[in-house]
């Protein structure tokens, strides 16, 4: 699941870079340019939102008789700020 997240993010950033370059080239028609612009803005906002999420999971990887499982990791300290 997270693989998908990482890959989707990387794909989005790559696509965004491509759009930025294409648009900067200035060889597109107005219609195409507007479409790319809209897509680019949407991608960049999506990526930024992903990097601004504030939910995380901390788990422990357990192994019993060759089988893996995840358990909640007990964070001993509350945020010290």
């Amino acid at each position: 699941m997270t693989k998908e997240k990482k890959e989707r993010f990387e794909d989005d950033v790559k696509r965004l870079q491509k759009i930025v370059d294409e648009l900067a080239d200035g060889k597109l028609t107005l219609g195409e340019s507007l479409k790319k612009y809209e897509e680019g803005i949407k991608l960049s906002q999506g990526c930024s939102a992903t990097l601004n999420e504030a939910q995380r999971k901390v788990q422990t990887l357990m192994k019993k008789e060759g089988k893996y499982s995840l358990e909640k990791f007990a964070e001993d300290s509350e945020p010290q700020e």
Partner: protein
Amino acid sequence: MPKVAPDLFSQIKGPERHIYKVREITKDIKLILENSFGEVWVEGEVSNFKSAASGHFYFSLKDESAVLAAAMFSRANKEVKFKIEDGLKMVCFGRIDVYPPRGNYQLIVEKIEPKGIGARQLAFEQLKKKLFKEGLFEQAHKKPLPAMPFKLGVVTSSQGAAVRDILQILRKGAPFIDLIIRPVRVQGEAASGEIAGAIEDFNKFGQVDALIISRGGGSIEDLWSFNEEIVARAIYNSKLPTISAVGHQINITLSDLVADVFVETPSAAAKIIVDRRNVLLADLDNYRHSLSSSILEVIYNLKHALAVLLGALISPLDRLLEKQQLIDEFSAGLNRQIRQILNITQEKLSYIIEKLEVLSPLSVLSRGYSLSTQLGTGEIIKDAVKLNEGDKIKTILDKGSFISTVREVIKDDKREKRAF
């Protein structure tokens, strides 16, 4: 001459002469040598090192002017952590032994340690060299970290400061990162096996995007597990990108050298992720700016192109105006010329008219002469012969005229002419 035969052999033919067997004298030498030296420390440079199939080591210790044969049996050399190599300066502990079958003496080595540096350091240097030769540190093998590792695996102690630092810094700087921790011992005999095992576990388990292999600061001995070959190889073989973050600033471990990314402390490992996040956010911002300025430029360029086209559309009008102007100029010139011609013509005309006036019969009338014409035909009467009594004639004066009837025709009027 008395015959005196010289007794050349008398001295060695003495009665107390004792002849040793080789084994006897060797035995004596063995006794004397081995008893008089006992256990000794000897320093020298290793040469002709050989590791026999039996597991025993054979080599020589030498200095500028002497050589001492040495043997280290497998029972003793198992404890040696580093590799004994020719050229190494060593301090050996053992006993002098005579080996009868070869008639030589040698040092039976029980302990061997490098001179100058610790055995550990030497072992480290040797392993480092070996792994370097194998290519474990090669840049070409290093995997890039993903743009953003959204799920991180952490190999470290669940108790130490390392895990706490990493969790805290990520919570503050990149709170969207999920973490999976595989707790291991990070010092002591079992640690290297556990660390290597955990790296393999993560590779089998999958799900994470990168690994942090970490331990907080400590003495060089404390960090030693991260210098073990098994750990270095596990990191090298990891398909997941690895970040090694062991110890404190100055310590560089073999883990550090093998890992894809190496930072000095656990905190620094977490900061890499936070920095990446900040750089990415700034990049994304820049992309948005770039997109906006690009689209504005596209629009500006189109506007400009439109203006140029509009200009091109107006230009026939301009040309028309130009032509009109030209025509205006021409016609102004034309007018001037015509006027000039007219003036000249008029002058000529008045001249001619003046001349005509001089020649006109009417001008004679003004001097008192008159002109008579036949009333019917209008023929000017120059000769009386053509007149008859009763003809009506019109006489034109300078001012006005009158009509009269002929009463008498006088054909010769010479006298009268003379009278004039």
